[in-house]
C-alpha cells in the first residue's frame, strides 16, 4: 500500500507505515536529527526533526510520525528553524563547550546540526560540573557533554541486550549513567554506546599521549607495535586512503616513521574464541561456559611477541575498545582512532599527516621466527552483537549448538566495524 502526501508542496508517494522523515529523505529533503537512530532509538527526545503538519496544533517529530494519505507537511519555515535553534540553545546551555579539547571535535554530530541550523553563537553562560567516569580505563563517560538523546541507552538495551546504561533522575537533573561506576556496573566494554553517541559524552580512554611520550623518551628500550589486521585496513580512512591493502602497508611505514622499532602483525588462532567483551559478558551470564570458551590460548596473539620482546614497550593497535580493559595484553593499547591521533601528535611539527600519508611508501611487517600467523580457519559461523551472542550461548547451554561451530563477536558488525574503528 502506498500513501500520497505533500512535503513542502512536492508530491511524495511513500510506503504505508513509513515515517515523515523517511518520506522526506526519499525525495532528497533533509531534516536534521540528533537522537534518531534507525531501528534502534526512536524516542523523539531532541525535537530537532520537528515539522509542521497541516491541521495539527503543535509541531510533530518527523522521526516517529507516520505518513497519512493527504497529509501536508512543511519541513522548513522561519518558525520551525527558530524552534530548532531554541532547542539547540537549550542543549548547549547544558553541554560542556570546551569543544576544542574534545575527542569528537572534528566529527561531532551536535556541531553538524548546529552548522545546519546556521547558528553563530549561543546566548548562554557555561558552567556544568561533573567528573568523567574513567573507572574502566577503556570507556570514558563524561556527562558534561551528554545531551540525553538516549542513543546509547537504546543501543545498550535493544542491540546489545545488556541494559547497563540507563536514565536516572528526572526533569532537568536527568542524566544517563550506570549503577555504580561503569566498572562496577556489569559493562562488558563492547563500546557500542560510544559508536552511537553523537557527542563526546562517551569516548575511549585515550592512551595516545602516553605512547607519544615513550616514543620520545625510549630510555634505551625498543618500542614495537602489534597491529591487528582490521585496524590496519581501516586506519587509512582517517587519512583519505580508501584502499584497505594500501592502508595496511602504509601504516607500517608510518609507524616506523614516527619511531617504532618494529611492527608485527597480530596472530590469530583458530581454536580459541577471543572477543574480550564476550568473555566479560560470559563471566556474568554463563560462568560455566567461560573456561570452555576461553582457554589458556586466548591471550596468545600478544604473548609470543611479548616473550620475544621482553625488554621492549609493546603497543597493540586494535579495532577493539574491550581490549583496553584487559590486563597483560600489551603495555599500551591504541585503537584505530587512537593511532591516527598519535600520528597527528607526532607529525605535527613537520607536515600535516594527510599529506604525509598521501606520499607514503608501502612497508612490510617484521617477522618473528617460529610464530604461526593467521591460522584462523573460516569454516565457523560468526555471531555478531552481544544480544545474538547471548542467544547463541543459551542454545549452547541447552545443548542445541556446538561451541566449536561458532565464532562470537560482541560488536554488532564484527571487528572490522569494531568500536575502536573510524566512525563513518
Amino acid at each position, binding site marked *: 500500500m502506498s500513501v500520497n502526501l505533500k512535503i513542502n508542496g512536492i508530491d511524495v508517494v511513500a510506503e504505508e507505515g513509513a515515517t515523515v522523515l523517511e518520506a522526506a529523505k526519499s525525495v532528497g529533503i533533509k531534516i536534521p536529527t540528533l537522537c534518531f537512530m534507525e531501528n534502534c532509538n*526512536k*524516542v*523523539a*527526545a*531532541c*525535537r530537532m526533526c*520537528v515539522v509542521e503538519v497541516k491541521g495539527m496544533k*503543535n*509541531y510533530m*517529530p518527523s522521526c*516517529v510520525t507516520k505518513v497519512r494519505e493527504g497529509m501536508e507537511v512543511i519541513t522548513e519555515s522561519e*518558525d520551525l528553524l*527558530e*524552534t530548532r535553534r*531554541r*532547542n539547540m540553545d*537549550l*542543549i548547549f*546551555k*547544558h553541554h560542556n563547550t570546551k569543544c576544542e579539547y574534545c575527542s569528537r571535535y572534528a566529527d561531532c554530530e551536535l556541531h553538524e546540526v548546529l552548522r545546519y541550523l546556521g547558528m553563530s553563537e549561543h546566548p548562554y553562560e557555561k558552567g556544568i560540573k561533573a567528573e568523567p567516569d574513567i573507572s574502566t580505563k577503556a570507556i570514558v563517560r563524561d556527562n558534561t557533554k551528554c*545531551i*540525553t538523546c*538516549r542513543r546509547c541507552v537504546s543501543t545498550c538495551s535493544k542491540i546489545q541486550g545488556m541494559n547497563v546504561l*540507563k*536514565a536516572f*533522575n*528526572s*526533569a*532537568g*537533573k*536527568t542524566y544517563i549513567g550506570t549503577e555504580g561506576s561503569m566498572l562496577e556496573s556489569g559493562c562488558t566494554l563492547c563500546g557500542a554506546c560510544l559508536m552511537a553517541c553523537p557527542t563526546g559524552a562517551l569516548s575511549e580512554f585515550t592512551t595516545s599521549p602516553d605512547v607519544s611520550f615513550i616514543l620520545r623518551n625510549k630510555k634505551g628500550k625498543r618500542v614495537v607495535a602489534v597491529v591487528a589486521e582490521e585496524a590496519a585496513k581501516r586506519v587509512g580512512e582517517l587519512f583519505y586512503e580508501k584502499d584497505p591493502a594500501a592502508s595496511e602497508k602504509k601504516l607500517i611505514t608510518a609507524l616506523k616513521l614516527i619511531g617504532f622499532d618494529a611492527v608485527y602483525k597480530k596472530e590469530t588462532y583458530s581454536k580459541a574464541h577471543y572477543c574480550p567483551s564476550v568473555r566479560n559478558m560470559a563471566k556474568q551470564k554463563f560462568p560455566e561456559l567461560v573456561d570452555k570458551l576461553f582457554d589458556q590460548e586466548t591471550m596468545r596473539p600478544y604473548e609470543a611477541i611479548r616473550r620475544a620482546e621482553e625488554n621492549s614497550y609493546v603497543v597493540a593497535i586494535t579495532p577493539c575498545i574491550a581490549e583496553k580493559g584487559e590486563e597483560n595484553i600489551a603495555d599500551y593499547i591504541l585503537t584505530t582512532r587512537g593511532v591516527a591521533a598519535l600520528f597527528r601528535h607526532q607529525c605535527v611539527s613537520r607536515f600535516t599527516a594527510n599529506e604525509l600519508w598521501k606520499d607514503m611508501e608501502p612497508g612490510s611487517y617484521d617477522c618473528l621466527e617460529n610464530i604461526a600467523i593467521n591460522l584462523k580457519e573460516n569454516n565457523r559461523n560468526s555471531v555478531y552483537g552481544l544480544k545474538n551472542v547471548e542467544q547463541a550461548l543459551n542454545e549452547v547451554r541447552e545443548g542445541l549448538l556446538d561451541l566449536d561451530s561458532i565464532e562470537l563477536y560482541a560488536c554488532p558488525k564484527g571487528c572490522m566495524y569494531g568500536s575502536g574503528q573510524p566512525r563513518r
Partner: protein
Amino acid sequence: MWPNNTYNENEYCKLQLKGRILSQKNVWDAVKKAIEGNEESIALLKESGLIGRGGAGFPLGLKWESVRNEDSDEKIVVCNASEGEPGTAANAILFQENPEAVLAGIAICCHLVRANKAYIYLRKKYMVFAEKLRKILLEKKEYFDGIEVVVFEEPGGYVCGEETALLETLEGSRGEPRLKPPYPTVSGAFGKPTVINNVESFANVPFIINNGVDEFKSIGTENAPGTKLYTISGPVVNPGVYELEIGLTLGELLKKAGGLKTGTLKGMQLGGASGIFVKEDSLDKIFAPKAEGVNFGVGDIRFITDQESIPQIAYELVGFFADESCGVCIPCKYGLLDVKDKLESLIDKDKQPEEYSSILNSCKYINQSARCAMGQAASGCLTSALSVFPDEFKNLIEGRNLF
C-alpha cells in the same frame, strides 16, 4: 503559592459539600445490574454522555466500548489516582468518603470490557487508603470473580499521572510518556488493551447504572452532564472539595466557597496548576468543559487576590513543572528550567531582568515542540499568566535600575 498537595495537610484537602456521587448508596447492586445488562449497560453509559473526569474529557462509554471490541485474551483496567497536581484533592476525598463507589465502578468496568486484571494506581501520599481499599476488595470479592485487583504504588512523580507514563511504570520502567499511537485502548499495559480512567469517572458509573440516564442528565450542561468534585483554593473562606452540578458560573462557585477572606479579586487559575489564568471580569462565565473562555481541566479553581503577585505565582508553578518533567525531551527538560531562570531574574532584584518578550517566546517554543501534554500544559499556563497579566511582569522590569 499552591500548597504542597499532601493528603490531609492542605487546607483544600477537606470535604465541604457532598453531592449525589459522594453520597450514593447501593453501589454493589449496580455491579449486579451491569453484569445482567451487559451490552446494554455500555449503551447506557454511552447515552449518558459521561465524560472522563481526569482532565482530557474523553467520553467514557466510547473508551470502554472500543476496549470491549478489542480481540484479546487479556485486558486491563487502570484506575488512575495519581492526583499529583497542586490544588487538587477530589480523588482523595472520594477515597475518604465513598471508596465503595469507586471500586464498584472498577468492577463494572472489568465485567463490561471483559478485563481480568485491574490496577488501582495510587500516588505515594494516597497509600494511606490502600488498606481500606484492600479490605473492601476482600469483603466484596464475589463482585470481582475472575478479576485480579492490584493496589499499585506510584513510583515516581507528577508525570506518572500521564496515562502512557503510568503504563510504563506499571511495567516497571521509568515513568516516561510513550509516543502515540498506539493508544492504550489498543495496546496499553504489557501490550494489552487497557482502560485508564480517573477515580471520579469510575465513581460516576454506579450512579448511572442505578438511576438511569435521565436522572444523570437532569443536571449539568449539554456537553458535560452530571456533577463534578471541584477543588476550590486560594484565600476563600471555605477552601476545599465541593461536589456541585457542572454549569455554575465562576461567581457562583466563589459564593459557594464563602467568598474571599481578604483582599479584592484579581483573577483566577482554572483547571488546576497547569490551567489557564483569567481576569476577575470572567466571574460571570460558566465553568464547564468546552465552555467559552475557560479551561475546565480537572475542575479546580484557584482564586487570586491583589495581595498575591502573578510573577511570583508563575515562578512557583514553573519550579514545580521543571522539577516534575520526566526528562526526555529537550524543550520541557531544559526549556522550563530556562523559563524559571528568566522569571527568577525578574523577582530577584540583584539580577539583570530578562525581557518580557523573551520569556513569552521561550514559553511559546516549549509549547510548540514539547513531546507530551505535560510540557505543553506547563508552558501553556505560563503563557497565559504572561499574556493575561502583562503589566505585572513589565512593572517588575521597568521599576528596576538596569545596569
